[in-house]
């Protein structure tokens, strides 16, 4: 079965090609939708089969590289389209194809009637293809292909409704900011190649594992790779693109900007765990950046009123969480959170999509409220998602988040833990602020009369995925029930071989079950519950409190609601000076002014010399004769006296 991994990757590409090349002629949404979904579905089925085969294999024998054909080979560089099937990649594949399939199905309903229906599915399939390359690649270059490919699809899908200017801006921003990260990534690749002479994972990790901890080159390699991850996974300082990316269709936000693509950075760092384990300094940076991002994004999310923006900042925050996990060396936990987060964040986004769909593209939660009665299925599932992300047991989010907090605690940094816990509380708070404002209370939109909105439950193609995801959000975390709660940490065991080298280097103490673990669990649940309670209290019962707070601390509120003015800062500090400098100094100054000035000036000079020089030719014979005489005198002197 392993050999079929190529087919897993290829199927979505076929789907993309079919829809992309002939989709505009098909015109039948059903055909397009089915082609799009089925290819991904098949991929999912195949990867499940491979997964099952893997489970059947001996633990040491589970990883395998399937080499298809040579890609770029020159000099010492050899890269192939080769896919590495191992525990980590198959897990990611399952998530990508599984969640991807659900979102495809959902999109059939959501995108109904859109003139770009075929285009949409083509892009979405292409995305799956790229993402699979990313997670399955057996070398950094192929990973980079997927890496950039998903960036491209993200670009295409953010800018899907291209008639509006802001979608184009957002798409471009996403691509460019990602490119800044990719720049670092590329440098990382170069360093890797210079250091190890290969870009293939296995050989290079093998070589790296015998190097000593803290070697400078490893620090630089990991740091550069991390810059790539920062771009892709929207961490400080490159997170600015993700909130804007919500300009795309909501299922896209769910799939790309929540469940899969943005976690690519986490995946990549986990994949290079061996390298990171050898670079403790980088890991610290990763942890700090992750936590800072988590806090920052969570605080911004508190004040946002756009349903998708809230979710977007929540995503950024959760991604920060994942990096925090990686930063403390808990690579498998990072992946675990990727996995649970995929379910509940996809669910939340899809739910918000259903809401937006129902509200006729109204996204402001201040203009919603009381939707519970109009769309019960959406409400229930959304609520499950919110609970899951808040970290209430026994839903998925709880387990992964709890593991992160536990690792942070055991890492010995209380400060990190405190902030992480506060973030968890903030998360619960803003999620339930969202739930409250959207679904609870009284409607704040016109229910009757002219221009009234008539929210309605979404069609089955949309609700079924919601329900499946809701179920997954509940049970998904059960593969990682901690020992303290009597679980076996199945996912940790499963992933263990992948992180074996890293773990050996890190030599994290295998913490047993201590009393403190129970305290921590209780604390985190309590914080989450408190967050939920406060949100419900403030926004349902006593809405004057948040208003009052906003007034009282209007400065803080303004900063938060304006997202710390990061965009404005970037514009003023980087974008505008670059554009203006290029235009005025480089183009008009150097190019047109100096270089062309010299060129044209020389030509002018010759012309002027010519214009005045010709006047010597006065037209009078004797003038010429004088010149002759001067000439002959010169020649005589030259010949006689030199």
């Amino acid at each position: 079965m392993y050999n079929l991994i190529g087919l897993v990757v290829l199927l979505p590409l076929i789907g993309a090609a079919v829809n992309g090349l002939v989709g505009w002629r098909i015109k039948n949404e059903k055909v397009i939708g089915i082609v799009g979904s089925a290819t991904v579905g098949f991929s999912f089925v195949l990867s499940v089969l491979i997964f099952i085969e893997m489970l059947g294999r001996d633990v040491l024998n589970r990883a395998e590289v399937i080499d298809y054909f040579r890609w770029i080979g020159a000099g010492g560089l050899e890269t192939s389209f080769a896919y590495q099937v191992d525990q980590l990649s198959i897990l990611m594949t399952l998530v990508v194809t599984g969640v991807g399939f659900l979102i495809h199905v959902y999109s059939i309903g959501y995108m109904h009637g859109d003139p770009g229906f075929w285009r949409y599915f083509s892009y979405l399939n292409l995305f799956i293809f790229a993402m699979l390359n990313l997670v399955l690649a057996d070398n950094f270059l192929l990973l980079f292909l997927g890496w950039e490919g998903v960036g491209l699809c993200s670009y295409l899908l953010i800018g899907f409704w291209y008639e509006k200017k802001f979608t184009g801006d957002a798409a471009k921003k996403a691509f460019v900011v990602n490119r800044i990260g990719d720049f670092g990534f590329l440098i990382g690749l170069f360093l890797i190649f210079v250091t190890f002479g290969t870009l293939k994972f296995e050989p290079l990790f093998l070589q790296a594992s015998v190097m000593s901890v803290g070697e400078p080159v490893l620090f630089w390699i990991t740091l550069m790779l991390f810059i790539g991850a920062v771009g892709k996974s929207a961490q400080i300082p490159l997170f600015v693109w993700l909130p804007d990316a919500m300009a795309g269709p909501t299922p896209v936000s769910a799939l790309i900007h929540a469940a899969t693509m943005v976690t690519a950075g986490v995946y990549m760092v986990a994949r290079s765990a061996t390298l990171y384990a050898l670079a403790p300094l980088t890991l610290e940076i990763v942890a700090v950046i992750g936590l800072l991002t988590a806090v920052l994004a969570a605080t911004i999310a508190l004040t946002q009123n756009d349903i998708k923006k809230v979710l977007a900042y929540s995503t950024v925050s959760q991604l920060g969480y994942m990096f925090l996990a990686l930063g403390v060396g808990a690579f498998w936990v990072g992946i675990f959170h990727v996995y649970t987060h995929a379910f509940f964040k996809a669910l939340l986004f899809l739910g918000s999509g259903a809401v937006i769909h129902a509200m006729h593209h109204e996204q402001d939660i201040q203009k919603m409220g009381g939707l519970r009665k109009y769309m019960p299925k959406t409400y229930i599932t959304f609520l499950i998602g919110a609970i899951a992300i808040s970290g209430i047991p026994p839903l998925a989010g709880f387990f992964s988040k709890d593991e992160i907090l536990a690792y942070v605690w055991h890492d010995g940094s209380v400060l990190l833990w405190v902030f992480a816990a506060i973030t968890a509380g903030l998360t619960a708070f803003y999620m339930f602020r969202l739930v409250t404002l959207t679904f609870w209370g009284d409607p704040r939109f016109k229910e009757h009369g002219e221009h009234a909105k008539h929210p309605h439950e979404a069609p089955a193609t949309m609700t079924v995925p919601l329900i499946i995801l809701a179920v997954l959000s509940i049970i998904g975390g059960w593969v990682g029930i901690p020992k303290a709660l009597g679980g076996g940490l199945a996912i940790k065991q499963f992933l263990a071989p992948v992180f074996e080298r890293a773990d050996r280097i890190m030599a994290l103490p295998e913490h047993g079950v201590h009393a403190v673990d129970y305290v921590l669990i209780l604390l985190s649940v309590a914080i989450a519950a408190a967050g939920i309670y406060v949100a419900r209290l403030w926004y349902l019962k006593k809405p004057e409190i948040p208003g009052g707070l906003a007034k009282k601390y209007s400065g803080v509120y303004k900063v938060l609601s304006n997202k710390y003015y990061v965009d404005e800062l970037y514009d003023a500090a980087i974008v505008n000076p670059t554009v203006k400098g290029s235009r005025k100094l480089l183009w008009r100054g150097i190019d047109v002014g100096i270089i062309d000035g010299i060129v044209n000036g020389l030509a002018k000079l010759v012309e002027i010399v010519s214009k005045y020089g010709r006047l010597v030719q006065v037209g009078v014979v004797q003038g010429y004769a004088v010149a002759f005489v001067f000439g002959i005198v010169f020649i005589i002197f030259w010949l006689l006296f030199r």
Partner: protein
Amino acid sequence: MVSLNFYLSLSAMLFTIGVVGVLTRRNAIIVFMSIELMLNSVNLTLVAFSSFLGDATGQMLVFFVITIAAAEAAIGLAIIIALFRNKQTVNIDEINLLKW
């Protein structure tokens, strides 16, 4: 006996006078006459050399120069006349249609 250098100096002076004449006179015919003077000073040189070298080639050359000077005179005067017909002047300062 008069030495060669005297002849040479004389002819050089004559030649220079001719050159100066060409440079300073305004009448085309006089300019032409100055050129004839130059040629004749050369003839003088040639004859002097011929005599001092005891070689007839120089004198032979003089005959050719004289002949050519005659031909030149014929052509030159013809040209000046043609010009005079059209322009009514032989002042070479005024003959400057072609310039620059």
